[in-house]
């Protein structure tokens, strides 16, 4: 189970992990869409379940969800606002009229593959940095309210903890038409493993 709070040093380390993971993913993303993707400073919060939905908001998003197994187990979500989905479909898929509300199996596969590449980049960067094995599962896909989507990773944590450790890194392109976030939700055992590895007193 998570302690009551996380110490500043622990928070810094977790922010750095968010940076490393999302940084690698953003580089991959920039290449895919031929546009510069900028990262914001990661937010790290240990929140009670009762407040967790506020952390992600009520917005409709397209989400790709991965379970991460290995020494640093947890859950990974890539959440994209629907305008961003349209932008990706139109710029990567080259179909100028493609839209999230008319998603055929080809476009859905393309989105999932992009999610796979980005989350793979995120996870592998953290895995390389920590020298810990992390194995993501195949992605699951949904378009819905962010709060409802996060039910699944939180339910997965439910029996282990009363709180969720959320590492959120948002990104955007220069304009406002493109944004999204990576949300990594490590399990309590992953936090212990990490802090032990880096010699951070808990």
């Amino acid at each position: 189970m998570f302690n009551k709070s996380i110490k500043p040093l622990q928070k810094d380390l977790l922010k750095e992990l968010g940076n490393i993971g999302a940084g690698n993913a953003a580089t991959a993303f920039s290449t895919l869409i031929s546009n510069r993707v900028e990262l914001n400073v990661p937010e790290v919060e240990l929140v009670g379940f009762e407040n967790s939905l506020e952390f992600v908001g009520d917005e409709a998003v397209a989400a790709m969800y991965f379970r991460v197994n290995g020494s640093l187990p947890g859950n990974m979500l890539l959440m994209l606002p629907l305008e961003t989905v349209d932008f990706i479909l139109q710029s990567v898929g080259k179909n100028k009229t493609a839209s999230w509300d008319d998603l055929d199996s080809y476009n859905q596969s393309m989105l999932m593959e992009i999610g796979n590449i980005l989350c793979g980049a995120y996870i592998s960067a953290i895995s390389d940095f920590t020298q810990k094995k992390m194995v993501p599962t195949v992605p699951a896909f949904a378009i819905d309210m962010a709060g409802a989507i996060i039910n699944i990773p939180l339910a997965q944590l439910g029996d282990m903890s009363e709180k969720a450790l959320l590492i959120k890194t948002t990104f955007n392109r220069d304009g406002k038409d493109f944004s999204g976030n990576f949300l990594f939700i490590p399990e309590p055992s992953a936090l212990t493993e990490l802090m032990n590895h880096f010699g951070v007193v808990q």
Partner: protein
Amino acid sequence: MTDVLKVGMSEVKITSAPTMLKTTGLGSCIGLCMYDEKLKIGGMAHVMLPSSVNSKVSEFGAGKYADTAVEFLIKSLKAKGCKKLKAKIAGGAQMFTFSGGSDIMKVGARNVKAVKELLAEQNINIISEDTGGNKGRTIVFDTDNFHLIIRTIGSDQKTI
């Protein structure tokens, strides 16, 4: 202006008319409303998981599990003098389409089953429900007329 009481994930709240109860972001979770029509007192739980049996933590919100939520709602409502309890439920969606079929993906269906069984054991009638499917819901329960208003993305609001 009527007050709206927000019910967070794993919480239970009890109130009386005209205050409304609201919970957002019900995916696989269940919004369980229990009420007494005569006294116009009602409660809502935002249930995450079917059973507290496997919990590795000893302190948790009463609404977190179906079993603890049903027990807490009955106890709290009876303590306020409620006698004939009725229920309305919403939620329990399968949020992700996933061919692998890990257990956690089906938690919505397991939540629905658990809540229904527990209510049946306590002889509490489910007056109406909107469960399953694959869409997240936001719900508002009106303790004055016992309407449960349900919003989903991409379809019209409905009242059950």
